[in-house]
């Protein structure tokens, strides 16, 4: 209880001068202490979060993933739809530092590959042409694109200068499309669908949970029964059923939003419970009582007084909810009931890996799955660190 009262007071103190050491004490020993004593709630959280090394690293990975998601066209070396029958199931191109004669080159390079069909096995065989080195350069002109549907461009973060040489960092798929470029493009939908879905669940969760926790009594009971009911249902069959009802002729954008709505219809319950728990605790606080006594409206109490004081917990809960959404979207798309071609998400890409024969032939088709795991783990650890830091007055 005291924690929250302190929590309310702290931001007021944040404006106080931070460097006013008592003259009787040594300055260095005091500096750190004073920082803590007058730091705002958010500064304290930052201190606490910084100590959680793994969370910090994962936070950086999460930010990187979203940066990639924002600039996919520029970061991907090729157009994700560019087909090349001669490169079907081509293994990842090796990036060399030593050439065929064993000389070291500081700038990594690739060799061009030629493919030939083996007339005995009817499989494509790839041979490196070691006569010409193709260094991998930064900022190369290549496949044209239209960024965010607004700007035309053909500049790519990296690539080889010779347009006739194609390199496949993570191999090629059945139609000879570059798996790496496709994964980069998939980042946009996969990472954002979690974010949009969580924001949507958050809005539902905060309204329902806030109302339930604030009013208590019968309202609370009814809302809790509804949440329990939704939680007791197996989610994937429900998602499948709802997703199967989407009209087949919808555009990518429509399906995208429909899927986020479907995911949030069930996903809001967890957030509502977090909000309710915090709201129940806050309801008893003196500052809420004070606001109520001075005649503040209920909506205002909820939005202006209660929400800001459990914001940090909410942000942590949100971060932890994003990976669930990502997994759900991947699972739905993988089963063919989520996003469909021509949309590119990690789940859609994994459809290529559904068949055991293609994975055995081209294990790199599982690479989108690795991205899912990386994103999910990074978000989980990041959210974990945030949750620990969310309550800086604990110990």
């Amino acid at each position: 209880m005291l924690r929250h009262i302190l929590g309310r007071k702290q931001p007021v103190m944040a404006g106080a001068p931070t460097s006013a050491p008592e003259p009787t004490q040594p300055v260095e020993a005091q500096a750190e202490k004073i920082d803590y004593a007058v730091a705002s709630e958010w500064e304290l959280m930052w201190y606490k979060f910084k100590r959680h090394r793994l969370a910090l690293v994962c936070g950086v990975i999460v930010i990187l993933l979203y940066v990639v998601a924002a600039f996919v066209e520029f970061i991907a070396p090729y157009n994700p739809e560019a087909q090349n029958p001669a490169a079907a199931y081509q293994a990842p191109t090796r990036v060399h530092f030593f050439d065929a004669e064993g000389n070291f080159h500081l700038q990594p390079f690739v060799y061009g590959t030629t493919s030939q069909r083996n007339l005995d096995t009817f499989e494509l065989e790839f041979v490196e042409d070691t006569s010409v080195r193709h260094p991998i350069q930064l900022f190369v002109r290549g496949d044209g694109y239209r960024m965010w549907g607004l700007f035309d461009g053909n500049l790519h973060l990296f690539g080889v200068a010779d347009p006739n040489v194609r390199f496949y960092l993570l191999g090629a798929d059945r139609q000879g499309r570059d798996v790496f470029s496709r994964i980069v493009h998939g980042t946009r939908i996969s990472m954002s669908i979690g974010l949009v879905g969580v924001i949507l669940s958050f809005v539902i969760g905060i309204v329902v949970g806030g109302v339930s926790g604030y009013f208590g009594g019968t309202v609370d009971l009814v809302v809790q029964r509804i949440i329990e009911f939704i939680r007791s249902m197996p989610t994937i069959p429900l998602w499948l059923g709802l997703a199967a009802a989407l009209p087949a002729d919808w555009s990518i954008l429509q399906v995208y939003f429909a899927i986020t709505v479907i995911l949030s219809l069930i996903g809001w319950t967890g957030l509502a419970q977090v909000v309710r728990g915090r709201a129940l605790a806050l309801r008893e606080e003196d500052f809420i009582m004070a606001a109520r006594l001075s005649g503040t409206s209920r909506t205002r109490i909820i939005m202006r007084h209660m929400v800001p004081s459990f914001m940090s917990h909410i942000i942590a809960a949100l971060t932890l909810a994003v990976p669930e959404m990502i997994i759900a979207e991947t699972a739905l798309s993988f089963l063919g009931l989520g996003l469909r071609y021509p949309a590119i998400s990690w789940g859609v890409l994994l459809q290529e890996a559904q068949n055991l024969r293609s994975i055995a032939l081209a294990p790199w088709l599982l690479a989108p799955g690795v991205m899912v795991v990386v994103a999910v783990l990074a978000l989980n650890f990041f959210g974990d660190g945030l949750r620990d830091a969310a309550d800086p007055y604990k110990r």
Partner: protein
Amino acid sequence: MGRYIIQRLVLTIPTIFAISIVSFVIIQLPPGDFLTAYIATLESGGQVIDQAQIDALRSQYGLGEPLYVQYFKWISGILAGDFGYSFQWQRPVSELIGERMLMTVILSVASLLLVWAISLPIGIYSAVKQYSVGDYFFTFVSFIGLGVPNFLLALVLMWWAYTQLGMSVGGLFSQQYADAPWSSARVIDLLAHLWIPAIVLAIGGIAGLIRIMRANLLDELPRLYVTTARAKGMKEGRLVLKYPVRVALNPFVSTIGWTLPGLVSGSIIVSVVLNLPTTGPMLLTALQSQDMYLAGAILLLLSVLTVIGTLISDILLAWLDPRIRFN
């Protein structure tokens, strides 16, 4: 205790009623009624349509009538054991899903048992030996387990078994037992195949429950009653198992409420990947071809299954913890 069980049983009735409504709404969502879709499939297949049969179906399922009438016809049929007719398979739904439902139950229960059998001892170990190498190892593994979607695990496992061991891990039966009647040999064959999907399914739950068990037990271990027992010279192993573990077990049992829906959910998609004869692949194809009575029956039964599981866990919890049944 008897009163509590009755109370709990009464509470499940509205839940199951609500579930049936949700399932019905979902099967009604796709545009058009399925009978038109069915007729279209028949016509494209060049089959002659018997108008009398169509009319009979139409009136049997109350198509064209208000939704509540259709719902009433659907649900009263189910209460009488008639789950409707599968247009895709040309057979009554009840004939189709019986064995597959059984397999889903077996798979889910097997994974649940596995989740408990593995996470309980590891959770206790992690708490008692907090910050030991073993604790760090299991913490790391369980975080990975939480992060990897189980269908991905199934895919990787299949790929690994196929390329490294040269065997295929799909299915729940060997070929000769797939359609055979039940016999002891078939049960043994089932057990020999069951453990792979059960482990794949259980990993996520195991990871979660290790965390919960560890946290619960860590809360209990510094309590005074533990110190008292230790001061009296009780053997450490017996002490831990007899008192703090028993207390820590309560939240553990109550998690069945979310573990079970999770396992049933997961079994759908893992079954599709591993090609298991459960309801999963059938639900998927039924939804894709809008075979709505089949899909509706599976949705309904899966949800009822989890509700029953939760009911059992609540009763178990009340039996373990008297505070709950007197509340």
